[in-house]
């Protein structure tokens, strides 16, 4: 479904600060896979997701999505197939537009933008139903501008927007990191529900190791731009946070000065 071959990315190449963010990463996802990605800061997690989304251009390697080599596709073209949510709730929505208008923008993902009314009555009904399922009461606020929503509400809306048009692939780049714990639980529950409902192939970066173990059917650990550990199925389910930390030490061949870097965010 998604094949990444030898993805390599250097930042600030040729300078003293040269950083090898991705060092020959290869990954093969089957349709319906839900992969969680963990690793310390600077491991290349975010770069990997951005490379898949087309926001970061690879120096070497290839990205094949559903049999199509998308390596040279610009980000907006890949977006027809890929939904992505970033950490910052402000990134995924338009504050000056209403909830309905934001959803209408998302409903036409990958399609031509026509000279017809964006928020039709039919769409509004559909939006209300989807919003109701979020359980945040947003279904009554279709014409409220997003600027008036809290960070959690905005991120829940972004989640809905990312999944509304059933993308082939969903990329979650620490999408809970800026939310308070209670809201994060709520948004995560919605994430799992929407992923299951749409049978979406999903890649989720998280700092929460327990969550990385609990959610999804596959797990990969990145370190210094390389995949250093992978687990799937029962093997993944049997992991514990402590065993993951050991894996990390073994795989990276070093002890972190402070394990909290890995354990918390």
């Amino acid at each position, binding site marked *: 479904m998604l094949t990444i071959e030898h993805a390599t990315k250097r930042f600030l190449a040729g300078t003293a600060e040269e950083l090898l963010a991705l060092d020959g990463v290869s990954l093969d996802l089957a349709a319906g896979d839900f992969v969680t990605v963990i690793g310390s800061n600077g491991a290349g997690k975010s770069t990997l997701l951005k490379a898949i989304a087309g926001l970061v251009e690879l120096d070497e390697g290839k990205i094949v999505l559903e049999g199509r080599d998308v390596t040279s596709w610009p980000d907006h073209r890949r977006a027809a197939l890929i939904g992505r949510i970033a950490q910052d709730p402000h990134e995924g*929505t338009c504050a*000056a537009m209403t909830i309905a*208008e934001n959803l209408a923008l998302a409903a036409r*993902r990958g399609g031509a*933008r026509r000279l017809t009314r964006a*928020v039709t009555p039919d769409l509004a009904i559909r939006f209300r139903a989807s919003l109701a399922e979020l359980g945040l009461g947003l279904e009554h606020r279709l014409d409220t501008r997003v600027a008036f929503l809290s960070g959690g509400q905005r991120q829940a809306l972004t989640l809905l927007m990312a999944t509304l048009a059933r993308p082939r692939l969903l990329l979650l780049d620490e999408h809970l990191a800026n939310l308070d714990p209670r809201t994060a639980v709520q948004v995560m529950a919605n994430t799992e529900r929407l992923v299951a409902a749409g049978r979406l192939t999903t890649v989720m970066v998280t700092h929460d190791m327990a969550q990385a173990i609990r959610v999804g059917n596959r797990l990969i650990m990145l370190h210094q731009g390389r995949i250093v550990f992978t687990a799937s199925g029962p093997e993944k389910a049997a992991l514990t946070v402590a065993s993951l930390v050991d894996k990390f030490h073994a795989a990276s061949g070093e002890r972190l000065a402070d394990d909290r870097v890995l354990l918390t965010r």
Partner: protein
Amino acid sequence: MQLLSILSNSVEQASLYAFLALGVLITFRFFRFPDLTAEGSYPLGGAVAATLLVNGINPFASTVAAMLAGAVAGMATALIHTRLRVNNIISGIIVMTALYSVNLTVMGRPNVSLLASRSVFDDFARTVGLAEGAGATILLAAVLVVAGSAVLFWFMRTELGLAVRATGENEPMIRSLGVDTAWTKVVGLAISNAAIALSGALVAQDNGFADIGMGIGILVTGAAAVMIGESLFGDGSIVRWIAAVLVGVLVYELLVVVALRVGLDPTDLKLITAALLLATLSLPRFRLRFLGRR
């Protein structure tokens, strides 16, 4: 009586400049950059309309042609910005500069008189059976402004219009939903500069001439109108934006007409414009300080 003439004079000017303000609203507020293409597309509108009119072309067709020319100018700026990756302000400056020569070439001389030609306003007056003059001018301009505002309002709520607005507000977001923002920028700048060129075409026909220098400082005029309206109405929905701009341009023209009536010379006009813009920008700050909020 003087009050009435000040008012009618302001309304007449405001209805002609409304399209300029609406065009500037699109770039200045929705796209968030001062598009200097306006300084070229406004006189381009005047030049194209005037040249066609003196060659006996139908006034309505001439005015539409002026709009299309403005749209092309806007597209040029957008393409330079998106395809050649030139900064948006610089792209506008490049096109503005190039248009100066284009406008001269179109007119063949720095000033074209329209006194011997029929204008859209004359044609309109004849069609509806009004006397030619300020009344007919205001009526036609008002009809055009209402129609133009309605079209803009409708457009901004279409799928394409929403994408254009989102391009200005949150470009990474709209790209992540599969929109090629190079295209939406072309659309936005084309509409903006078509409106601005229409304004130039109408003003030229009302004044009875097109002049190579008619665009100087025009962006500031548009921006002042936008910001005066904003300070009175605040921002918000599209209806509110459009209403704010229309009120803003009226207030602006009122201030200009009054300034001229109290004895300021027309040569001081740009100074007045600049002062008005400065006042609009700085007054809220003083008010806040006075209230002790800042």
